[in-house]
């Protein structure tokens, strides 16, 4: 191992062993439990459980809303991170700290707060209701909640990338005759794209599993606004642990595929950026 000689941390064997042990304990053990639980039912039962129309509809709702929320965060989170990195203004530290609030708030509190705001009699909802826009108790409400909880992931992963981006490079591009648009699309964007994708992936993954804030704002109607985690909870409520595990395994598999895909794009974009 070449790494061994150059590494500042002593003992590759020890650290690697600890890494595997730790990952095994924290990540793989619960996942193995999940798989074992779902394996207690036959393949036919498994298939029937995960293709039930209510389950299929909730997969669509959860994945769809999570994608929308992560995309919204990718766009507006980029703007927030840009402002926080590039400009200095009074109260910047406070704004910066505010970004972490969705991390820190108990999700149920966020859910109730958002519902209170967006319900037809809430501060925001009452202005939207006459326009025929319903947020609380619709799929739009789910997206709002997921956007709220996902924002810090995008901003916090983008900030270091933007800080690394030298203003000189932009100046160089400008002096070589690039338009502002070209500077953004050709210089800035490719450099921060890997970080943006990471932020997107984190926000997306977080949204898939979100339960606490969504159940308050979604209305929980089967086929319309019922999310996967709620369906899993309902199965547990009926002591149907195996089917709950089956639904979770499919959700997990699907998110793994999505995350893997994002990682591939990221790998590709990194090569593209350095090429």
């Amino acid at each position: 191992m070449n790494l061994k000689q150059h590494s500042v941390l002593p003992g590759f064997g020890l650290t690697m062993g600890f890494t595997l042990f730790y990952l095994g304990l924290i990540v793989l053990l619960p996942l193995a439990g999940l798989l074992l639980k779902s394996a207690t039912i036959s393949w036919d039962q498994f298939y029937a459980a995960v293709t039930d129309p209510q389950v299929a509809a909730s997969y669509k709702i959860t994945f769809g809303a999570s994608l929308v929320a992560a995309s919204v965060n990718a766009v507006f989170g980029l703007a927030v991170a840009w402002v926080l990195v590039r400009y200095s203004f009074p109260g910047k530290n406070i704004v910066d700290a505010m970004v972490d609030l969705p991390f820190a708030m108990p999700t149920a509190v966020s859910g109730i707060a958002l519902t209170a705001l967006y319900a037809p009699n809430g501060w925001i909802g009452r202005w939207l209701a006459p326009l025929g826009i319903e947020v609380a108790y619709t799929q739009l409400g789910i997206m709002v909640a997921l956007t709220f909880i996902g924002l810090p992931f995008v901003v916090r992963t983008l900030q270091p990338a933007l800080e690394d981006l030298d203003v000189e490079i932009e100046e160089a591009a400008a002096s070589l005759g690039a338009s502002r648009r070209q500077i953004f699309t050709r210089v800035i964007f490719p450099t921060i794209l890997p970080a943006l994708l990471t932020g997107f992936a984190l926000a997306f993954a977080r949204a898939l599993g979100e339960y606490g804030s969504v159940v308050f704002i979604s209305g929980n109607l089967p086929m319309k606004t019922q999310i996967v985690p709620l369906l899993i909870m309902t199965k547990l409520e009926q002591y149907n642990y195996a089917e709950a595990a089956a639904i979770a395994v499919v959700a997990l598999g699907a998110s793994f595929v999505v995350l893997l895909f994002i990682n591939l794009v990221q790998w590709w974009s990194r090569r593209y950026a350095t090429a």
Partner: protein
Amino acid sequence: MISRPFVAFGLFSIALVSIAVFAGGCRQSADPNAVEILNVSYDPTRELYKEFNRVFAEHWARQSGQTLDVRMSHGGSGKQARSVIDGLEADVVTLALAYDVDAIRRKAGLMPKDWQSRLPNNSAPYTSTIVFLVRKGNPRGIKDWNDLVKPDVSVITPNPKTSGGARWNYLAAWGYVLKRELGDLAELHDPNSADAVAKANEKAREFIKEVFQHVKVLDTGARGSTMTFVQRGIGDVLLAWENEAFLSIHELGPDKFEIVVPSISILAEPSVAVVDKVAERHGTRAVAEAYLKHLYSSEGQALAAKHYYRPRDAEGVPEEYMKRFPDVELFTVRDVFGGWEKAQAEHFDDGGVFDQIYKP
């Protein structure tokens, strides 16, 4: 930028953990004359048990000289039962329906099979029923179950899959249709009217399907639905526990809501039981049994009535509480649905009637 909050957070969590460990350590060194029990209950009993625990602790101190501390855990009834099955050390459970208590027996074997006959009245010291909460002046003119399916009426109820209260709502509506179609619920037990019963059940199924088409929000628990109706202003009618409906009116003033009592409803029997295995391990069986028995005393019954539960025995309950409860024809789950186990399997389990009404 990022590291300072993280360090602060790290220190903060270390502080929290040490507080937790410290507090945990303290509880061990308790006074030998002190006894503690955990009552795992469902959502709308918060106010009742808060007062009852205080009253019973005084009673127990007089009787045994021990200082009693009753800790409470509240939540959706099904979820609470699952916590006990999964190891929450409840000395007594006071849940929304016998089915949930029975699940503790079936899944974890923490109590004997005859638990329900150990206390009077099927181990349900107080009862309740399902009523409608409507907005002041009853603008939609909701008088009975069939008004729920009038055009443009929006109904709020929790999800029967996750909420014990919602199952009572659902079965009450079903029973209403059976009564309307059959004229007399006794027909259900008459073998000669099997055809009529089957037809009535078919009608009930259609009715329930229609009711749920009027439901815009399915919260996971009874308190959630009450919040949706009362605080968010969603819906024209809330199907609620009678005690919960009274409480909403009491808390928020009678100028906003009123209670409508339908022509017929269900007798909801929230069940209580000592969790034998846990109480024996804790050595709290005597106090746990006395605790539940005290619910049947005139003091306990009066407190139940004060908190809007219908007492089993009106003797010794102040008249001002008794007159709150309007007369209404009530049927039991056993009479109409053949017991909880059957009702659960037929209506609420996966693939049951409730799932079918949401089939596209």
